């Protein structure tokens, strides 16, 4: 990282680190939400931004990751640190299966996106009928008192969740940065720009695309596990919902697909905008239901029209940074 970037990043990192002590719980909960969306968005970004595969059914991995670890916890008392491995493994298998089917049959672009939606919806309805995980009635995890930190069961005060998410975002950032500079990163760039040319050069596009999908699904699975233990209740209708898939991808797209900081910036911008609009509307006294979402939609519209590559690239240029 350049020195300039480091200088800009240091104060930000400092604020983030001490946030639980200085901010009120409301801000903390919003911050945790932002970090959650940022992390999940980053995971999605690996698939889309790096390898160019548009996944619109990403909540599939969140849901499966969440349900697997939650079910293990509720049914067998298996803690999240152990359960997470099975979650990840299953999501990897799922991602690999979808990727394999798609790429073997040469599906890409919009068709691939629709395929991901289909799989996600299929799973949603499936889970609705799966009595072992509570079906559409939902799966509830037992909530313990939140004052002590019980790391084994991943329970504790909100600050603990905040730091966990912060750590995850940081690790994801480091990991993705490393990926971009590695062989995988270059191959992905080649595939993204022109797949046929890449193939002509001898790159096994199939293998590398599959790798992107697998990494993305694995990362997202972790997000799902976090979700399960943070919210403590899961409903197929909510967690596999297409609106969640859309929510995940909004951050990276608004922030800047394929960039490192894009997803984080996008998640932050959108969440702050959403809450900000609610606050302003509340202050103005315009409490008409639905008006907030209209404004939110307009903001999205404006951003996508005038900043097609996301907020980060022009911002980065202004700050004099690279990517």
């Amino acid at each position: 990282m350049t020195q300039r970037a480091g200088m800009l990043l240091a104060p930000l990192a400092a604020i983030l680190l001490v946030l639980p002590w200085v901010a009120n719980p409301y801000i903390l909960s919003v911050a945790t939400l932002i970090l959650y969306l940022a992390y999940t968005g980053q995971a999605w970004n690996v698939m889309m931004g790096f390898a160019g595969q548009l996944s619109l059914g990403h909540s599939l991995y969140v849901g499966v990751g969440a349900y697997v670890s939650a079910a293990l916890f509720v049914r067998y008392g298996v803690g999240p640190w152990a359960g997470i491995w099975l979650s990840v493994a299953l999501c990897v298998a799922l991602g690999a299966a979808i990727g394999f089917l798609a790429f073997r049959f040469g599906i890409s672009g919009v068709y691939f996106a629709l395929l991901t939606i289909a799989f996600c919806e299929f799973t949603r309805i499936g889970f609705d009928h799966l009595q072992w995980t509570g079906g559409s009635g939902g799966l509830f995890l037992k909530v313990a008192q939140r004052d002590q930190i019980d790391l084994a069961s991943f329970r504790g005060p909100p600050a603990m969740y905040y730091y966990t998410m912060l750590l995850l975002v940081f690790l994801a950032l480091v990991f993705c940065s490393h990926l971009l500079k590695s062989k995988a990163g270059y191959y992905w760039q080649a595939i993204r720009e022109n797949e046929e040319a890449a193939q002509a050069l001898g790159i096994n596009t199939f293998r590398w695309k599959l790798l992107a999908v697998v990494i993305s699904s694995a990362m997202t699975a972790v997000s799902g596990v976090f979700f399960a233990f943070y919210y403590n209740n899961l409903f197929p209708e909510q967690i596999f919902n297409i609106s969640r898939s859309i929510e995940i991808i909004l951050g990276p797209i608004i922030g800047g697909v394929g960039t490192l900081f894009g997803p984080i910036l996008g998640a932050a911008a959108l969440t702050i905008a959403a809450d900000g609009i609610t606050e302003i509307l509340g202050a103005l006294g315009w409490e008409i239901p639905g008006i907030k979402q209209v404004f939110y939609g307009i903001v999205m519209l404006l951003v996508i029209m005038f900043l097609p590559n996301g907020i980060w690239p022009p911002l980065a240029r202004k700050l004099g940074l690279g990517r």
Partner: protein
Amino acid sequence: MNRRDFNKAAAAAGAAAAFSPLNVRAQAQKLKVGVLLPRSGFQGLIGQSCQKGADLAPGVIKGLLGVDVELMNADTETNVDTARTRAERLIQEGANVLVGPFDSGAAAAIAQVAEQRGVPFVINIAAAPQITEQGYKFVFRNFPTAIDLTRNGLSLIGDLFRATNVAPRTAVFMHVNDTFGQAMFKGISATLPHLTNLPFRIVDTISYDPAAKDLTVEVSKAKAANADFLLLVCRLNDAIILRREMVKQRWFPMGVVSPGSPGMYEEQFSKALGPIANYCISNAPWFNPKTNMTKLVKAAFAKQNPNEKFVFHGTNVVYTYESILVAADAFKRAKSTDPKALADAIRQTNITDRAVLGGVLKFNAKGQVEGNLSACAQNLNGEPKVVLPESAAEAKPVFPAPDYKKT
């Protein structure tokens, strides 16, 4: 009679307030109640209905208890994340108590926030049993759990048959396949075999997608079961589609009875279907049309909502109203807005004059009110009327329905 009672009560409260020095101090303080409801998004319609109950509460409560209640409204947007952050925000802005949120998922999320921050949370409507099984100290629910709903609903069916002297032998059970429907299904499967006073058996069970726009297949399957009546757990939109489909397929069972679900008693059902909405029966948590409290609430509702009919919003309104009443009543007894004091005071709640149909409003050790009853409400002349229990009845039940055709 209403007006006079109301004025008497107001005068009495005013006099008590004027003469009691302690009350003066409590009156100087206000109780800030954070109201979390889904006013937009998929549950917007019901959320807005509940909101009416919240909006009329401060006025009525001021007259009854002399307590000042300030509402802080927040929209959960039918979204669990929003519910959570909004709850945090309300607490941040100084809410002493939280009430809401109609949805079980949101309730679970808000409950965790409330418990974490030590702020009492009174749930107005949410049926998932697990919420009060978590050992929370700050979460209270004045609404029957899905298990209670099922039990009450089924026993009312027995009462219905007894009251009309009809004994159908078979029923076909249709239910939405969502949180609510599945809980009902489980409840019914578990309790029905044990209720020996219900002589019917279920010949077929058909579950359907709540978002389905076409129920032709489901209805034809149900019709083919050739049962005496239809036992239905539904929501509003699918109930409308279903009923239309029944008429189109010329299926006229003895009756359409819901052991405990929304849908058929709602305004849109009667509006959209006209005469074929009549005689449908819903056993649901309801208001008691004969109590003084209900009359007060009804009057306040009419003033604030001159174009709406109370009976269609009744359940949502009274349960939401009572959740705020509980908070205000506890505030009056605790004489402080300290959350722990409020929570303790709520635990001691004992309200006998209620708008909700049921016994005394008391919370058990888990924070749950036992004894909220369902009423058997039948659509008659375009409006749901309470036909059972007899003590609260406004009309006599009609069963089988006049258009019953034996197939």
